[in-house]
């Protein structure tokens, strides 16, 4: 083991990852210089690195990409899930290359630098991933210095001093701070880009809701769609660190969306006259964010407001309903996770498997679900809970990311189900 006591930098090493246990991983730095402290996780998706880096759920995390060539297609203004990257940095096997794609606007390393994010290349990411699999996601410092000068003791001290994600409320840091009507459009189409709001308004509810054959999604279910709705139901979306594609999917499914900050109160929400409330994904520990969010959700439930939660939103819905959440050993992060529809009530699609995008280090403990909650989805990888529905209410949540981006688009029906159920 290379330990902090033996800090001779190999030649050309301009990047370093110092784990809290004293392990040092050398590499070549790219992107921004300096250092950042967070939790090291991995993501096994083979496409969509820019979406991953901008996903606010990755706040506080350093992403190890298991796919060796990252940066091939560069970056562009469209493939972002937030205004700026939220992941602290990334660790990759291969050096970042000049991009080759007609959509490219800026090389990945330049984009990282401009956004103040640190990367390290030249790392055996598979070995690191296996270590995370076996020992859990470690706290660490990632640092980049073009001269290769690192004060390893100092970096180690930082890594050790960091409290970790458990108990951390990061939603407050990444949420938008104003109440805003979502006007940035619908789903992306080749040759068109994101659908403009006026296009969406012009199209009928049926084609807007996935009956078209534009290949924008793969998982529409017409039975949820209310054909001929004249007016878009109003969805108030609580932003705990939401990915933009969620809003794009909601408007694609026919909703009018108002985004509100994480700490918006029940009364403020009700003042917006929502037909339904959406609970977004976000970073950090659901228990910590739940301190202020869960009471609001509980009130919404009591008021019989239809609810739909994704990831962190799903976890807090479960907390509000009386279940518990747990920190997972290694988390689920990738774009190939099978989720099965279970628990009856699915009609002919009971047992169907959706391939989903996942990004979570905490999960709802399926054992703690009260009688009032029905388990609707489970992970086929480890059986962990992936979806719940509150019995007798129009309130449900999923642990995974039906909005995809990156990842498979098999689960669009959830947006249809939510929006279609609003009046």
């Amino acid at each position, binding site marked *: 083991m290379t330990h902090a006591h033996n800090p001779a930098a190999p030649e050309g090493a301009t990047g370093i990852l110092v784990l809290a246990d004293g392990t040092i991983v050398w590499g070549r730095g790219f992107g921004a210089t300096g250092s950042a402290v967070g939790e090291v996780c991995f993501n096994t998706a083979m496409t*969509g690195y820019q979406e991953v880096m901008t996903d606010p759920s990755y706040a506080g995390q350093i992403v190890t990409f298991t796919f060796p*060539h990252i940066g091939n297609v560069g970056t562009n203004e469209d493939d972002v899930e937030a205004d700026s990257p939220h992941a602290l940095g990334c660790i990759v096997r291969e050096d970042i290359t000049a*991009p080759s794609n007609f959509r490219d606007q800026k090389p990945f390393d330049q984009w990282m630098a401009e956004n103040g994010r640190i990367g390290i290349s030249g790392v055996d990411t598979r070995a690191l991933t*296996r270590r995370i699999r076996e020992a859990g996601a470690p706290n660490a410092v990632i640092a980049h210095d073009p001269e290769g000068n690192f004060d390893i003791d100092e970096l180690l001290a930082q890594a050790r001093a960091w409290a970790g994600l458990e108990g951390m409320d990061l939603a407050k840091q990444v949420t938008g701070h104003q109440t805003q009507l979502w006007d940035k459009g619908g789903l992306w189409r080749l040759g068109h880009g994101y659908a403009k709001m006026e296009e969406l308004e012009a199209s009928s509810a049926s084609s807007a809701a996935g009956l078209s*054959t534009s*290949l924008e999604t*793969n998982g529409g279910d017409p039975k949820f769609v209310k054909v001929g709705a004249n007016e878009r139901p109003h969805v108030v979306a609580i932003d705990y660190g939401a990915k933009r594609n969620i809003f794009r999917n909601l408007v694609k499914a026919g909703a009018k969306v108002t985004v509100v900050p994480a700490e918006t109160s029940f009364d403020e929400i009700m003042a917006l006259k929502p037909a339904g409330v959406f609970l977004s994904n976000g970073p950090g520990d659901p228990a910590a964010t739940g301190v202020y969010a869960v009471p609001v959700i509980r009130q919404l439930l009591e008021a019989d407001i239809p609810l739909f939660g994704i990831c962190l939103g799903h976890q807090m819905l479960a907390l509000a309903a009386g279940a518990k959440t747990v920190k997972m050993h290694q988390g689920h992060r990738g774009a190939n996770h099978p989720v099965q529809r279970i628990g009856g009530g699915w009609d002919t699609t009971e047992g169907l*498997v959706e391939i989903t995008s996942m990004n979570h280090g905490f999960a709802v403990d399926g054992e703690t679900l009260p009688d009032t909650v029905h388990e609707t989805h489970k992970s*086929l990888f480890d059986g962990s809970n992936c979806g719940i529905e509150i019995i007798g209410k129009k309130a449900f949540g999923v642990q995974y990311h039906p909005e995809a981006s990156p990842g498979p688009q098999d689960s669009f029906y959830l947006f249809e189900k939510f929006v279609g159920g609003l009046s």
Partner: protein
Amino acid sequence: MPKRTDIKSILIIGAGPIIIGQACEFDYSGTQACKALKEEGYRIILVNSNPATIMTDPEMADATYVEPITPEIVAKIIEKERPDAILPTMGGQTALNTALSLNKMGVLEKYGVEMIGADAEAIDKAEDREKFKAAMDKIGLESPRSAVAHSEAQALEILEEIGLPAIMRPSFTMGGTGGGVAYNREEFVHYVRTSLDASPTNEVLIDESLIGWKEYEMEVVRDKADNCIIICSIENVDPMGVHTGDSITVAPALTLTDKEYQIMRNASIAVLREIGVETGGSNVQFAVNPKDGRLVVIEMNPRVSRSSALASKATGFPIASVAAKLAVGYTLDEIENDITGATPASFEPTIDYIVTKIPRFAFEKFKGAEPLLSTAMKSVGEVMAIGRNIHESMQKALRGLETGLDGFNRVQALEGASREDISAELARATPDRLLVAAQAMREGYSDAEIHGIAGFDPWFLARIREIIDAEQGVIDNGLPNDAQALRKLKSMGFSDQRLAKLAIDSVHVAGGAGRAVAGGHGLVHDALAAMAGATTEAEVRALRHKLGVRPVYKRIDTCAAEFEAKTPYMYSSYEAPIFGEPECEAQPSDRKKIVILGGGPNRIGQGIEFDYCCCHACFALSDAGFETIMINCNPETVSTDYDTSDRLYFEPLTAEDVLEILHVEQQSGELVGVVVQFGGQTPLKLAQALEDAGIPILGTSPDAIDLAEDRERFAKLVNKLKLKQPENGMARTRDEAVKIADRIGYPVLLRPSFVLGGRAMEIVDGPAQLENYINTAVQVSGDSPVLVDQYLRDAVEVDVDAICDGDEVVVCGLLQHIEEAGVHSGDSACSIPPYSLSDEIIAEMERQTEALAFGLKVRGLMNIQFAVKNNEVYLIEVNPRASRTVPFVAKAIGVPIAKIASRVMAGEKLKDLPVINRHIDYTAVKEAVFPFNRFPGVDPILSPEMKSTGEVMGIDQGFPIAFAKSQLGASAILPDSGTIFISVKETDKKVIEPAARLAEKLGFKIIATSGTADYLAEKGIEVERVNKVAEGRPHIVDRIKDDEVNLIFNTTEGWQSLKDSKSIRAAALVGKIPIYTTATASNAVMQAIEALREETLEVRALQSYYKASQT
């Protein structure tokens, strides 16, 4: 949903013989399907005419029919076996087409057989271009714009829709003669005219040109609950225009954003749903415009394919096995992922490495064929390589090809060439195009320039440039002397051999003397080596080991390390240490282990037969209690199924790669030995390096193998054993040649070692002819001598396969060839048992076999070729290793001889192993299958140069019907009446007389050219005279083209007459008229036709032949 219980028995159709475009990947898929469904308790009925397959091993199915795969024959099998269901998606296009025909004929309905996997409607929708296009329109997917025109005016209307550039293809011509790509209106009109002219139906297909677009494939699996998963995306490095089977491809796709990838994913799944592939694996191909991402569907295959085999090997997800289970009603979530053992098959594999596939070609075997790639597939095999980056992956693939490359070798013809020449070469899609691109970089071309001409995506070019730059670094500075820098080079995939070459180039020795000195010894060499860092492969290796730079082994786990991999399926990589040592996941066991070296990419002469032997070695040695470890790099094979051996390393078969694996395996347990005798020439070439490294070789020693191949050493042994070889000698001057020929006696066979203009080999009957040959055809010199062999005209050739354990020799198979000696044994048809050899001759061959086996100290298999002439046995060749005929012999006699031989090699005695009885009371005939229709312009004639890609077996009670079945299996439809054209060389006239007589008796009309006609007429056979091509029209080629000929017997000798008669054979090929180019085969054909008149073809399972012969 559980499996179906309403079906009990399933008929699986195989793919038949190995042909270009349909190779052993269908044995891999078929074997998986048989295994999976048998495990589920179904009764499996299998039909496949190819005896060299694992799937036709008798234990793989309950009833195995090695019969021709024609609708009529399969209908008979259905009538006899009454299967409940038929699975048509495992045997390539052959199986799909056969199943469709059976459906159309009403056979399936009549016997109540359900098509599972894909139904007739779905297959039809996918295969019929118009229906497919309509289906794609319906789901909003674009297809390439295309239309058919029958006139110039119509074509010009179409032009308005399609635009330029456009591709013109005349219908129903071979190789697209007359067609082309039009970039302007003038060219368009030109090609429309030439195409309409060339097409026999006056029809031209006009396609929107997608040249330069990027090409992708998606491997999709769907179950009956409508769960759809993508197993793998594949990106072609070659842009559109090169058949995907001939393209260099990588997995996964590397130049797509997630948004584009998801569109392609959604589209692929939409295609399966729309076409109606209810369950199983399919392949969907797309073209993408690199300028704007416009996506167009090219085609889909509603079955497993070459690409699905590649995807299975690339990801560890066994598509065929899963597809077979889905076909009987399981859903994906009910099937376990074997690799993790903990997760279900309903997920999408994700990988953390790069896979490269490079096809292997055989243009050198087909003189006259231009090595140009197009939309018609021409490759005969492929190599797959895995690396942690594209550099490592590509360079491993290049050396795994075994075409003499050790990486991006220089293209010498282009060194210092003019820009015109380099640009012209870049514009040609040749098998070496990637090397040409690399050479162009060395010659100063920019990536943009190369992209502009050759169309490779700039991302791939930039990676190749990184390799070329790294090479230049070594050339400039010599080899690095520190571990980090050397590891960096190795992690880019550089082989030790490549590094040694580059190191030599780093020392600027005038006139290329560096290479000569580097190869030598002494002070100068030492000085050179010191300057360069190292100059030989061994020195580079020593330096690397000294610095502790060794590969580690990573697992192929379907999940990028998210879960633990249970199955040891591995590849090598050079990793930087991050937690102390570089992390190696090999975890060698403490068992007694045997390593089996595979055969590498398929090529003509080394294909599925050797893979069959390697698989059997794995099975047998595993049964004997050893841990079996397979090393191979051919993704099409059964041997590279992780299920075949206990441990699988997917690695190139070079000394370096193999030795590193052995080093790791020797860390724990006991390496009992390595099997090098089963994979053809590939592993044999490594035997010396293994021995030098102190690795035990199982079975016959490499020295004995070398002895058999060394002309002089072998001659000594033959003398010692008092055996007889055809007389021979080597001439370095004209006079020597004359002298040797005089000594041997005419006729002699002359073979130059340096060939001019295609006149490779000639049989000469006298001194004048010899003189002419020496003067016009060859260069005779000290460096390029001519081999002079006694020519045994009309000799009967015999192959013998035997096993020796040191105490005992057992002859397993004695195969009498149909074609006379002189035709490559791999291209000859042959029969077990022999059909015309006397007991004395057979006994003599047995005696000689025994003498040779003991003389060579054989332990395991050996193959001998004999020629018999005038009751005299001549020894032609001995190979103390597994031969191409082993699987055929095993299938014919019903004894797994490769398994028995494996156990003998591991030390067991024949007396303790199952009895080998070669005396069967039925007949098995092997026939070779040729790819001539893929190479327009090539003369479809048999010669000492092997050209066949595959083989079929015909099995029946007697020789004539067994032979007829072999012909039918090889797609030759023998006529039962009509006209036979006979034109034979002088020496064959007597030989062919019985065939002509029989033809007359059976009522065939005989036409013949003058010489043959005279001879036959003289013998009282009625014959019509027909003009030779040179004798004025109408001549014989006119008659063939007018469909007036149903069968052709045409034998020739000598360069001139070959040239004269080539148009006859070419016309026969185009008209699909059966043609036989030896007199002996012609006789066998007439016997077969006679037998077919008297009895109908009956089908019978292998198992019943074996049972009957054992009692």
